[in-house]
């Protein structure tokens, strides 16, 4: 299909490009194409996340880093032949592996029997929400999602260890780099509240349609980051303080974990939401609502903090 062909072309372009700025932009296109591919594969939640991450957060952080490390790549490469051989061998092994796999799209493949059957048929009644992906993510496999929030938390702690935030920029950048762009500022002022509102919508509507805590957190962070780029790091930091963000990042993870602890105290197993309310399905709703909130809070705080850390290092607001 054309999407796959475009993906291959994009990937090859990235290998070829020496201009890292261009490579990052093309990588963003790769992310967007992947998201489109996911939509065609019926994976709407995943597409949403991949678009936010692959075409949003990833190029953003890459560009913030490139501002410090330099735009062009050195052309010397070594050990090309042995690496090519390794890559070809690995690829060949993978292709051999697919010989015994069920054909693409087969409805009777083993992957679709067993676990998937219950998730599809029973989750609308057992968990009570239409979005099956959210049911599995937040309830059946909720512990994995706790791990996922812990991963985000670990990343932000790691970035803070490495790139500690200055206590107020002494190297005052003065007016922001984009202060002069009137159109951007005006449109920004109109759009940013809408972006934040959309983030809240995605957060709470994730049970009924694509969405959920992670996507909401990323969109919320994107709104704040947009403000930072337009109006400067200093003015943003006065409102959205780093110390507050650190506390929020920790609190989100703690909130998620405490739902599990409350379940323990209420007599169920860890993260068993059915004991949280009188009716098991209501309990599921409550549990999912609170943990998604925890996810959203930690992810938003983490993304903004990571951006602050890179922008601070860059010295000129990360533009």
């Amino acid at each position: 299909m054309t999407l796959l062909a475009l993906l291959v072309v994009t990937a090859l372009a990235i290998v070829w490009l020496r201009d890292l700025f261009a490579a990052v932009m093309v990588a963003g296109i790769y992310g967007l194409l992947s998201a489109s591919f996911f939509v065609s594969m019926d994976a709407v939640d995943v597409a949403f996340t991949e678009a936010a991450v692959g075409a949003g957060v990833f190029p953003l952080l890459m560009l913030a880093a490139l501002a410090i490390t330099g735009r062009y790549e050195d052309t010397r490469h070594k050990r090309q032949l042995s690496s090519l051989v390794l890559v070809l061998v690995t690829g060949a092994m993978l292709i051999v592996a697919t010989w015994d796999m069920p054909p693409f799209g087969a409805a009777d493949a083993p992957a679709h029997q067993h676990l998937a059957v219950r998730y599809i048929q029973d989750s609308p009644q057992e968990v009570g929400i239409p979005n099956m992906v959210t049911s599995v993510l937040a309830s059946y496999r909720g512990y994995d999602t706790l791990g996922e929030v812990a991963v985000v938390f670990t990343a932000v702690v790691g970035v803070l260890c490495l790139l500690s935030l200055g206590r107020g920029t002494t190297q005052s950048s003065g007016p922001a780099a984009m202060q002069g762009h009137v159109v951007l500022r005006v449109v920004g002022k109109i759009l940013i509240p809408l972006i934040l509102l959309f983030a809240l919508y995605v957060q709470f509507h994730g049970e009924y349609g694509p969405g959920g805590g992670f996507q909401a957190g990323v969109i919320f962070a994107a709104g704040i980051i947009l403000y930072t780029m337009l109006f400067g790091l200093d003015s943003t930091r006065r409102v959205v303080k780093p110390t507050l963000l650190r506390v929020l990042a920790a609190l989100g993870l703690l909130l998620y974990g405490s739902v599990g602890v409350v379940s323990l105290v209420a007599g169920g197993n860890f993260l068993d939401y059915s004991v949280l309310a009188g009716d098991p399905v209501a309990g599921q709703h409550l549990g999912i609502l609170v943990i998604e909130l925890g996810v959203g809070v930690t992810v938003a705080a983490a993304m903004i903090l990571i951006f602050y850390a890179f922008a601070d290092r860059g010295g000129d607001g990360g533009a």
Partner: protein
Amino acid sequence: MLNHLPILQVVIPLLAAPACMLLDRARLAWLFATAAGLATFAISCLLLYQVQHSGPISYALGGWEAPWGIEYRIDLLSAYVLLVVSGIGALVLVAANTGVSREIPEAKQPLFYVTYLLCLAGLLGIVATGDIFNVFVFLEISSLATYALIAQGKNRRALWAAYQYLIVGTIGATFILIGIGFLYSLTGTLNMVDLAARLPAIAGSHTAYTAFAFIVVGVCLKLALFPLHLWLPNAYTYAPSIVTAFLAATATKVAVYLLIRLQFSVFGEGFAESALPLDAIFLVLGLVGVFVASLVAIQQPNIKRLFAYSSVAQIGYMIVGMGVGTHTGLQATLLHLFNHALMKGALFLALAAVAYRLGSSDIKAFRGLGRAMPLTMAAIVIGGLSLIGVPLTVGFVSKWYLVLATIQAGLWPVAVLILLGSLLAVVYVWRVVEVAYFQQRPAGLAVVKEAPLALLVPTWLLVIGNLYFGVQAGFTADLAGSAAAALIGGAP
């Protein structure tokens, strides 16, 4: 509460980490982290007791029974490894306040403890879980925390070492993810017990073999099995000394656990043999690792780096035990898992003490240290004797079982090679002893006192453990033996 121990084992350090983030003072963060570490260790002792008396424990997270929900499964092997990891984790934390004071600026110390707790939680999570994708998630938690911990070393090479480990580690994790994907596409499940039940039906397919290969390669990257060990020496050398003490005694052990669990409980012993001569591969790579690493260790001017290469050699021994393929071989591997944690934990903590006093790990700085820091050097000597495998130390017990296993399997050449490897260890340990005891302290250097108690006590606790379990080997040998029997018997 008692039936919730399996999940508390991981959740306590996991939630202690963000809580620690809210405490901004270094000393307070340390106290809180140490309390969490000790609680975690206590839980692992209780879990071992429970498993020994009532058999494997199964815990359904979220109230959903396996395989639809994630299952925590603690059997004898898991409880054993949990004990090692949480014990070392707690002990190193006790020493950490002093140990990091010269290497990490005070303002960053609270975040250090947060990262440490996350790493501990990640490692414990890998061992406790019965779901293969959950393994991947917690593997990444511990890996990311490890990269951050290593990068906090003072030398700029710590950053480069952390980056290299990040690239290698992420490739390994992605290989594991690929393997999990293939397994899921064939069986439709992610639960390890369920996988074990469903795999025999599709065992002959190319997909299953490739899945196995990719997962094993991914785990071996984390294990630092020769030739996939290149990230380890730099990472251990340039990380803060406390971090090296923690990682050297735990991270690779958890990877060995994962390999054993996958090979015996999930895929089943016969599986690998039918595709590749995996046992032979392990024997060869393990032995080559022992020799190459020991030879390189002998030439190192930096003591931390010397012992890092020694770790690669010791991991080689553990893999040889697996390669033998018998019950005694596996018992030897499991024994060495415990014993190596004791040995390297003691050694690197002692090196942390030296680094604290001297600020350097170069061998030239060790001149005359035998007189200046007698207790610390004695700890290093005993650790070294353990590495060689001198009787009365814990290293002797592992080597004994390993040689026994090879002789029982008729692999005489391997037994000889193992003994030759021990001789190489004598050479590199002697280098350190010679410089410390037989050379004078150069006149111009500052006077050096013995290590502070905070570092000395945990070091000597581990050293005494080395000697105690070397003499009274019954407890560990029996435990390792029962765990091995449960695995080789087939039933998880």
